């Protein structure tokens, strides 16, 4: 090993020397280098509590195992994370944690992503050594409106308490009682003042804190999870979308130190409901001569839309395309071309709130408003400017009823059938954020990938960019139809977009093609 000759300080883990920075703890260095050290109460964003005792490692020369989450590195320190002593210490801790645990995994929603399950499988002895009656503690206690606390499942790691103390500084939670009756307690008002409360559900390594919203909705192993981006506001928090059988069931934050660290706000987390609306438009619809809607195939609808738009072009009405501020760059790009063919321009509309804070929530609610501006799309603020031939709407709040009605559009791409204004003659289903693929630019100018899951939404929705390019072909025979990979290449090089922070290209070519 280069331990002795190296100028920078090193710590030896499992016989290999790793460099560390002043103030590093053993667990940080280990995790940085991909060495697994199990942990419950440790979180990289918070002060170490050192109370779960599962991260114990062997310190060479010490007869007793030490906790890695609080052990500061010093030159010459040598630890083993994989020795008999470390394994024994962890198995012992698992045994202690399970002695009063209700073991109600069939009922518990954490089953499948529970660290108690994982670690007892990996580290535990797999054998019950006692049939001692378990301590009874309160169950099913509401913590605010969205969270349910079960003190019996709780392992008292205090992550939730520390989150409210150290991250949000709102102190709604504390530990109460003592000894084996210790439990998390809430303020007597029983309400969270923080808008980030539901992060404690993700933080909870066991099933003690569960979300009222997701509770009992589905087993995790039936669900499909995709890494995506929250479209609740322009922050673009990285999330994991979980869906099953046509419904989005859960959004959970995904770590991204440049955007949202580990967190997301409650509003964003619960802002998926429109994707599960009972009035989702599932198939294209065309208004017949009597004005009644009838279902159509995409081919029929595209023909009808082309005809309606060609007619629209002849009348001297604005041939604009009005987009939802949450539309992707691809959709905006194609909308711009469609608008050009109609003799108008692409514009966007997005809600601006007044609830921004210094943490994650921003006032701009259009998830891609920054991208729209970079593409040169004008912003429609009031009904007087709303005139358009084509509408593309995902969320009601971005293109509200007055804008829709004032647009006089003849073709609409909508997520929800109730969003179709009276003037529209052809309506296409538009995917929600959970069903579309594309790039969004967040408020900081970072381009992030929105990724759809096949498990959410109606099954037959076709992407806007594919449908719109078909219409374009009908309107303007010389148009080249681009697949998403080709679109991405153009977007990356486009003026206004090329300077933004793009992730490396990862898209497999021709994922979506017309």
């Amino acid at each position, binding site marked *: 090993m280069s331990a002795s000759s190296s100028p920078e300080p090193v710590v030896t883990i499992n016989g290999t020397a790793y460099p560390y920075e002043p103030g590093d703890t053993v667990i940080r260095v280990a995790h940085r280098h991909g060495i697994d050290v199990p942990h419950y109460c440790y979180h990289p964003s918070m002060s170490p509590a050192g109370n779960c005792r599962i991260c114990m490692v062997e310190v060479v020369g010490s007869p007793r195992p030490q906790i890695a989450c609080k052990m500061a590195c010093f030159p010459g320190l040598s630890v083993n994370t994989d020795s008999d002593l470390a394994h024994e210490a962890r198995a012992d801790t698992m045994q202690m944690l399970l002695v009063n645990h*209700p073991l*109600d*995994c*069939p*009922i518990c929603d954490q*089953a499948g992503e529970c660290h108690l399950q994982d670690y007892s499988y990996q580290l535990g002895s797999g054998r*019950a050594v006692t049939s001692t009656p378990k301590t009874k503690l309160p*169950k*099913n206690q509401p913590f605010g409106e969205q969270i349910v606390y079960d003190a*019996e499942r709780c392992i008292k790691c205090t992550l939730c308490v520390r989150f409210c103390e150290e991250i949000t500084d709102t102190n709604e939670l504390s530990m109460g009682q003592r000894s084996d009756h210790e439990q998390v307690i809430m303020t007597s008002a029983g309400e969270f003042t923080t808008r980030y409360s539901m992060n404690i559900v993700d933080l909870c390594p066991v099933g003690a804190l569960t979300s009222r919203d997701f*509770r*009992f*909705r*589905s*087993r995790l*192993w*039936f669900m499909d999870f995709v890494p995506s981006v929250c479209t609740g506001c322009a922050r673009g928090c990285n999330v994991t979308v979980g869906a099953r059988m046509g419904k989005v069931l859960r959004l959970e934050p995904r770590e991204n130190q440049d955007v949202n660290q580990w967190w997301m706000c409650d509003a964003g987390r619960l802002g998926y409901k429109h994707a599960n609306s009972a009035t989702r438009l599932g198939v294209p619809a065309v208004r017949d001569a009597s004005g009644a809607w009838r279902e159509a195939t995409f081919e029929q609808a595209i023909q009808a839309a082309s005809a309606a738009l060609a007619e629209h072009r002849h009348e001297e009405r604005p041939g604009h395309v009005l987009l939802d501020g949450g539309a992707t760059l691809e959709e905006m790009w194609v909308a711009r071309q469609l608008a050009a063919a109609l003799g108008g321009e692409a514009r966007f509309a997005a809600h601006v709130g007044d609830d921004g804070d210094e943490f994650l929530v921003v006032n701009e609610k259009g998830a891609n408003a920054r991208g729209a501006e970079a593409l040169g799309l004008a912003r429609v603020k009031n009904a007087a400017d709303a005139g358009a031939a084509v509408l593309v709407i995902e969320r009601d709040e971005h293109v509200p009823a007055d804008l829709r009605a004032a647009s006089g559009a003849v073709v609409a791409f909508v997520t929800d059938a109730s969003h179709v204004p009276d003037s529209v003659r052809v309506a296409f289903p538009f995917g929600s954020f959970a069903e579309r693929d594309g790039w969004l630019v967040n408020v900081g100018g970072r381009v992030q990938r929105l990724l759809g899951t096949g498990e959410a939404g109606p099954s037959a929705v076709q992407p806007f960019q594919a449908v719109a390019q078909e219409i374009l072909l009908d309107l303007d025979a010389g148009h080249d139809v681009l697949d998403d990979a080709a679109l991405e290449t153009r977007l990356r090089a486009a003026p206004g977009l090329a300077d933004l922070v793009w992730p490396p290209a990862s898209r497999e070519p021709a994922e979506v093609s017309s």
Partner: protein
Amino acid sequence: MSAKVKTVHRTPSTFLERLYVPSVLKGLGITFRRMFQRKVTMQFPEERWEVREGYRGAPVLVKDDEGRPKCVACSLCEYVCPPKAIYIVPEEVDDASRAHIERGPAVFNINMLRCIFCGLCEEACPEEAIFMSKEYALWGASRAELIHDKETLYELGGIRAGGIKKWKGK
């Protein structure tokens, strides 16, 4: 076509066989003989077979001694079911007397047209709530009737007394 054709030689019937009378008489003889033997036909559905232990009939849901549903909608049977015959929608159960059981099925369907009677659901159930019954006569006037819903399953299952035994000694 290059398939080979194999010609099968058939023995021609004899004269007696072509008459059919001896065969008819032979058959009548069997019928007469049976008239004096023990009857084996059962008057189904009034009469039923005695089903042996271990028989895997229709899967059913059971209730405990006090008539409370045992199923907690953990969905393990749904997961394990090879033909995907089980469909469960869980819901929260608000029963203060059993605060530790917070969950039960809102919908529990077993599609008996799909069920292959493998018994894996019974094997997987951690709560001993689903059993392979001895019910073998399943019928319905429509396909929909053969999708057993929660009520049907509980009715078929009835009450199964005694605590959970399968984890003893584990």
